[in-house]
């Protein structure tokens, strides 16, 4: 509880400054909607059922795209980490794609996957797959070689080596990598939904803008921030699991 109070206080102060800025007219109403207006639009969006629908749509897209990326990236990273030659061959290509903004893929996403959930899955995949492979690969490459020598003495090979040594050893870095890439995914979904989608939180902001409803846009921004934060807290809890602690206690 003690940890929560300072954060909450800062939040309340920020809210107060926002309210004051509107109240004193530092920003005119058309440039910054007041907290009161935003609260009203919260109610309106919630009542219309749009907000819930948009939250589900965005979460669904992020989860599917992200799961597919993780399911492919983690095994690939684990394998590449132990194969210096292949790693060297693929590294430039992986890095090249990592630095391509997923938003640059938007026109292709629409042309290839049309409109709806699929282009969003694709964009989430493109934004998270490459950083995740690189993270896992780098983590495996830095496992002290003594681990593998000991594993060799125990005659661990193949699956056993992977599940008893390699995977547990990289788990802490893997979870950090997952948190970072999840952050990317959540940022990208909002941008991706601004085109090529017909619902979702990003679409909600875009539509609110088109409808000249900044109050509703702010309401969506708040929801996006809160959900992003909430899921990160859940992922953070993973670092506390004793399965993961193994990696820390080297």
């Amino acid at each position, binding site marked *: 509880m003690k940890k929560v109070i300072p954060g909450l206080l800062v939040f309340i102060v920020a809210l107060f400054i926002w309210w004051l800025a509107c109240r004193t007219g530092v920003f*005119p109403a*058309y*440039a910054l909607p007041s907290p009161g207006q935003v609260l009203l639009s919260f109610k309106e969006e919630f009542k219309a*059922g*749009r907000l819930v*629908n948009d939250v*589900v*749509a965005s*979460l*669904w897209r992020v*989860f*599917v795209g992200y*799961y597919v990326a993780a399911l492919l990236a983690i095994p690939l990273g684990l394998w590449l980490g132990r194969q210096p030659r292949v790693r060297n061959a693929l590294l430039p290509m992986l890095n090249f794609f990592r630095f391509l903004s997923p938003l640059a893929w938007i*026109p292709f996403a*629409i*042309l290839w996957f*049309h*409109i*709806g959930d699929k282009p969003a899955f694709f964009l989430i995949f493109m934004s998270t797959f490459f950083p995740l492979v690189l993270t896992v690969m780098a983590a495996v490459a830095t496992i002290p070689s003594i681990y593998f020598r000991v594993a060799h003495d125990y005659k661990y090979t193949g699956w056993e080596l992977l599940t008893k040594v390699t995977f547990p050893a990289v788990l802490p870095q893997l979870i950090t990598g997952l948190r970072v890439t999840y952050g990317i995914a959540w940022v990208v979904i909002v941008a991706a939904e*601004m*085109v*090529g989608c*017909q*619902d979702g939180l990003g*679409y909600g902001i*875009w*539509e*609110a*803008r*088109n*409808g*000249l*409803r900044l109050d*509703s846009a702010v309401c969506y921004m708040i929801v996006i921030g809160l959900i992003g934060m909430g899921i990160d807290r859940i992922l953070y809890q993973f670092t*506390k*699991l*004793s*399965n993961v602690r193994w990696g820390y206690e080297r």
Partner: protein
Amino acid sequence: MRFSKPIFIAFLALPIVALGLLRYKPWSALGQADKDVIHEGPNARAHRDLTIGFLPVTCHLTCPVTDYASKTTVSNTNFNSRLFTDFPTVTDALKSKQIMATFMIVPLAMKLREQGVPVKICYLGHRDGSEIIVAKNSKIRSFADLKGTKMAIPSNFSNQHIVMTKLMMDYGLKPGDITFVVLPPPDMPTSLASGAIDSYFVGEPFCAKAEMDGYGRVLYYARDIWPNFISCALVVHEDLIKSDPDVVRDLVRGIAQSGKWAETHRAEAAKLAAPYFRQNLKVLNYVLTTNPPRVEYVNLAPNKHDLQQIQDIGIKMGILGKRIPMDSIVDDRFVPDHIADETLDLSKLSGTAPH
């Protein structure tokens, strides 16, 4: 705390299963098969569907149109509308044939045709409906005053850009005398208010917004500077024209008749369109009901002479590449000879509510 494998897998699988269920709602009988359609036509017994794309930027009264066309269909078609938020997405959707008909800015349709996308202009969406807006206290009083200022336009392929270029030629202004900035229409009123631009030229309701908020005034109505200003047209994929010409004819008839209705029932039309645009009814009402009329929904048959003029200027400007015969861009076979009078019962005019 330790996680056993089954618990861990369950923990991972749970959110995706829950979200999948919430997303597709298998328990609801109809499901949400076509979530992309924002407004479904009310004709449940129709044996075919056609979805028409539109943007909420130029007073497209597409929802009432499709609603109306579905009710009065003679080809037993249900017309749906699908809201897009930008033109690049509309063009991509048209290229990949996800939508076969849409409202679109005319020069963009010409550009698509030039690129080999087989689309044709079958009808117009509306006339006029755009204004040049300057700041309320601005010293700009005439076209000549715009020299040396910064003007926002919605797209390089917009008719607003074409009209401005033609007027600049007429007034002897050189290219570059007015700096054009492409801005998303919703950002134009606020950019004007903050002084980032000196003026903007765009379709409604983004002009009305600046006026209603008290920091902008109309310098010119589109019709003052280019009578019968064309902004958007109904663009249809040729495959549909070939396979179902009667559906296209039915749609054009619907647009013509509901346009005639909207022309004389403006307040009702605003009320009808507002929920689909997620826009403030006050703004739409202002756009549709102020005098002199800002937008017209009559005289919508595509006139080859008008369109040729647009193409010629587009080519001079360099936004269009080559001269394409008007006959290959325009298909006016579907224009009705006589537009019947229509009475729409507002209380019955509702299909599926917008999501």
